[in-house]
């Protein structure tokens, strides 16, 4: 059972020790990772994915439940405790959706009958439905990302989930995040999206390859997050209408559709 994951400081790109000693993340927590491109967000995610033991370029160490993890946990997909949704938009494997999901289920020691459930969940996140006889390489960006999300949620199903820029996916990000973050999981989400960043309780700020600081979300920010979410919902509704060829008859600027706070 995973109670916590800890990041022990390494070095940034200039070789300087990072400005923290240790970050402990407990089960049930969603933590954000933010920073400009090239600031080391993905490298931090990678250190966690491979449970770095001062043997990566950043020299960080990752502990599970406060202890050095068993080496098997690093390498064997059947024992792996970490699921990762990376930035990739497409599959490169030349095989059918069904064959791929069955193979992955086998790698992870899961029931191959999960296939239908995964496809159903993926189709709830995207436009054109995925069928199991489709070849992976012909899936659109949105279909691929949805399938990756559903695969992480059901087949890689792990107590620690790493998410790299879910907002770039062109899929329903809130639904996707909900699907990925089951009960008691530890979620680390790399994001450029203020809505997602402010939904977390804490966020790690990255700079020149190292952790610069960790800040807790303030009450003010939490309030702002609620407002931003409403705007986002509006945008999503308009987006869906545009996508389905409907005319937009109201907008933000039309006070009737807005919640009272915005109309003021």
């Amino acid at each position: 059972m995973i109670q916590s994951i800890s990041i022990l400081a390494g070095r940034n790109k200039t070789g300087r020790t990072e400005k923290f000693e240790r970050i402990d993340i407990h089960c049930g927590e969603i933590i954000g990772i933010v920073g400009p491109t090239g600031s080391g967000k993905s490298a931090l995610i990678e250190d966690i994915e491979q449970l770095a033991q001062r043997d990566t370029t950043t020299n960080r160490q990752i502990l599970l439940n406060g202890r050095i993890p068993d080496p098997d946990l690093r390498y064997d997909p059947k024992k792996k405790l970490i699921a990762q949704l990376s930035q990739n938009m497409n599959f490169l494997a030349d095989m059918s959706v069904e064959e791929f999901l069955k193979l992955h289920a086998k790698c992870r020691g899961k029931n191959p009958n999960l296939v239908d459930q995964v496809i159903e969940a993926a189709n709830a996140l995207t436009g054109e439905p995925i069928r199991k006889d489709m070849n992976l390489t012909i899936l659109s960006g949105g279909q691929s990302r949805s399938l990756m999300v559903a695969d992480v949620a059901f087949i890689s199903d792990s107590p620690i989930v790493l998410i790299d820029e879910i907002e770039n996916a062109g899929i329903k990000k809130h639904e996707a995040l909900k699907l990925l973050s089951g009960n008691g999981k530890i979620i680390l989400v790399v994001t450029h999206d203020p809505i997602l960043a402010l939904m977390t309780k804490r966020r790690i700020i990255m700079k020149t390859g190292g952790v610069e600081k960790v800040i807790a979300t303030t009450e003010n920010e939490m309030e702002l997050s609620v407002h931003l979410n409403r705007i986002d919902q509006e945008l999503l509704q308009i987006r869906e209408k545009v996508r389905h060829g409907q005319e937009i008859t109201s907008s933000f600027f039309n006070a009737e559709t807005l919640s009272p706070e915005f109309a003021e």
Partner: protein
Amino acid sequence: MKVIIVAGTPGAGKTAVLLHTLKVLADEKRNVSAVKVDCLYTEDHLRFQNIGIPTLMGLSRDMCPDHYTIYNLGEMIDFANSNQSETLIVETAGLCHRCAPYTENCLGVCVIDATTGPNTPLKVGPFLSTANVVVITKGDVISQAEREIFRERILEMNPNCRIIEANGLTGKGSIELASCFDEAQTFSYEQEELRHNAPFSICTLCVGETRIHSQHHRGVLRHINGLQEYIGE
């Protein structure tokens, strides 16, 4: 002397991974020498030399680069000895998937590109199945699920290998790979044998025949229907 032989398909990232690994060894003040074998052209030896690693370069030209490597291993060992190196790292060109340049006591390192798809480990043959260490590159370009399937396929072909996930751009995996080099057995040039026989094709094409019609075929020939014959004197 420990000898590390690195093989892999063109473009898999052998040189990029090795550059990061050689930097790790250089930082540890280890005395290593390197050899870069290629077919027609390379400047990679200059990149190795730039980080302070004595490096010999060899071009096999119209000869099989793995045969060429084997014929020159003695000279390569002499080169490493002349630099008082305790470890020699040989990067081969490796082209046809059929060969495995590893000798019994070297540390055989196979570098394989994850973006080539999960069937690749089934296709590449002895340079994967007889390796001690398999380095997977470009894993960051595919999903975790595809990486896990790729890894499983490698283990189907070579159940006892150590797998390292590396990245030639960021240097991920280089510290782990460098630490594997210590595990190489002691290399003895006089007694060394190949783990897997080199590919053979003993025919007149090997010595310069360019005509393709069947009336010119001489030597040991294998037909698409599976039959094998010898034509000649």
